[in-house]
């Protein structure tokens, strides 16, 4: 477990990254990040920009679990897709403004995560991954069977985008992006807050050395369960926004390939970097969009190739490698 989690950066480097990031550097990074987030739909087709933002939050949520607690979930589609369906159903049947529906979806994902997390955090390593995968697949089959509620294979159609009667947002993807972006940014801020809290510090300790943390009086399973539920909630925010943005929920949102895709994005960006997932998500979504629009249907081959290349050549992921180079440049 430890080797997975700390593969991203060496001890000294992680430390240098903590100690070396000066306030002005952090502010510059924050400003650049916000500018990119605000400018994205000017350069990218707005619905795709929204996809990038949603997947980015999903990847950040996964990294909270994988990078900071060393738990590789292979069933996060359950929370992304589960929230997508819940958000869609709330929006369809209650007609509430979409941020409320998304919030409802996230709460549903968290409730779902309590029993799943309770049963899976008792296991670690590959067994944890398998248990989470099994639960997600169960949910997939339930959603497929309960077609009167979910639409089964046809998906959940006609998810409205109500937003206080503001027509621009409700009909135009460009304006919708700006209405939904605060939800994504709020989710990212929450992830940052969690990582840099007393709780986050304990998570890193548990990741590094769980028996030691127990000997210090920490109920390790309780911490793992809490971070699991928090990660599910943030994944749920992302999944809900995704559902509203598309106006329907497709069954594959719950499929294991969705779980795999978000792991891919996180690893690509850099495990344990938190913001690496944003880069990973941007890259994969744009690549998939470019390939799809140019009529190439072997997207998996290309993203898989990129993944293998990055894992073999840049083990730290894109963000991790960039950080590594930056720190070395300063040192020499």
């Amino acid at each position, binding site marked *: 477990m430890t080797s997975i989690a*700390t593969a991203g950066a060496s*001890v*000294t480097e*992680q*430390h240098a990254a903590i*100690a070396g990031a000066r306030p002005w550097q952090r502010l510059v990074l924050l400003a650049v990040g916000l500018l990119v987030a605000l400018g994205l739909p000017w350069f990218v087709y707005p619905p795709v920009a929204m996809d990038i933002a949603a997947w980015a939050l999903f990847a950040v949520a996964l990294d909270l679990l994988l990078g900071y607690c060393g738990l590789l979930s292979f069933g996060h589609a359950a929370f992304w897709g589960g929230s997508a369906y819940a958000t869609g159903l709330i929006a369809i049947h209650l007609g509430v403004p979409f941020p409320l529906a998304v919030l409802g979806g996230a709460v549903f994902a968290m409730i779902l995560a309590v029993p799943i997390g309770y049963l899976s955090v008792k296991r670690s390593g590959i067994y944890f991954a398998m248990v989470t995968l099994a639960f997600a697949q169960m949910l997939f089959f339930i959603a497929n069977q309960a077609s009167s509620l979910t639409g089964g294979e046809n998906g959940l159609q006609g998810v409205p985008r109500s937003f206080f009667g503001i027509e621009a947002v409700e009909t135009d993807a460009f304006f919708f992006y700006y209405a939904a972006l605060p939800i994504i940014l709020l989710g990212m801020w929450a992830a940052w*807050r*969690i990582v*840099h*809290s*007393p*709780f*986050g*510090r*304990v998570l*890193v*300790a548990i990741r*590094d*050395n769980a*028996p*030691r*943390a*127990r*000997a*210090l*009086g*920490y*109920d*390790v399973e*309780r*911490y793992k369960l*809490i*971070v699991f539920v*928090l990660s599910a909630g943030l994944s749920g925010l992302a999944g809900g926004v995704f559902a509203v943005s598309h106006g329907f929920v497709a069954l594959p949102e719950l499929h294991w390939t969705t779980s795999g895709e978000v792991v891919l994005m996180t690893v690509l960006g850099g495990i344990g970097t938190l913001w690496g997932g944003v880069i990973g998500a941007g890259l994969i979504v744009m690549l998939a969009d470019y390939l799809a629009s140019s009529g190439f249907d072997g997207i998996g081959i290309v993203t898989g190739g990129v993944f293998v290349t990055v894992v073999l050549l840049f083990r730290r992921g894109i963000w991790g490698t960039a950080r590594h180079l930056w720190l070395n440049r300063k040192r020499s």
Partner: protein
Amino acid sequence: MTSTTPTPRCALRTEGLTKDFRGFRAVSSVDLEVAEGTVHALVGPNGAGKTTLFNLLTGFLKPTSGRIMVFGDDVTGMAPERITHRGVARSFQITSLFENLTPREHVEIALQGLTNQGLRFWRSEKLLGRRRDEVDRLLAEVGLTELADKPTGLMAYGQKRALELALVLAVEPKLLLLDEPTAGMGIEDVDRTIELVRRIAEGRTVVFVDHNMHVVGQLADRVTVLQQGSVLAEGPYDEVRADPRVITAYLGEAHSA
């Protein structure tokens, strides 16, 4: 608590403590009694079951049979973190730290281990800095003041062992279990550690494992010798050292080693 306690209070008592690993009996009906405020050494050749016994006492292993009482309360089968909450702290034989945290962060984490502060995911980590005086005092006590904010991964072995002790102290234990506090140390570090353990033993009960008889002689009020999972001898250091059975067990080990 209802059991009669005629003699000075027992910090730790085991009754018939036994642990089997797939037919191999690692610890065999061990009865141990450690009076409050004393320093008690567990010695024995390799494979005598010392570390297994430690893991049983701290909840990391569940005993096959027998009971463990800490300050009169039955803690048999309790989870490690709950035993810690009862005032029992342990160190580990193999240096067991959090690679990515500095010594200061280690002690901060250890200090909040008994509180629920660690659950506050909505607060800033600056909250951890509030107990700075305590952190500084603990780091000073083990001589790590200058290394407080350096990466732990780069520290020398002796320094890591010292940090282990700081962590053990941070949970304000009444009963300390030290698994080979001087393992792998050079002479100078050993003497410094003896000094340190003697200092922290004041007002506390200490049970420790060590191979180094010099350390045992310097620190222990009483000694329990284990062999093949059972108690071979028990008593004050000088008495135990002179016990012919102990000499045989130890010399036999020394010759074969």
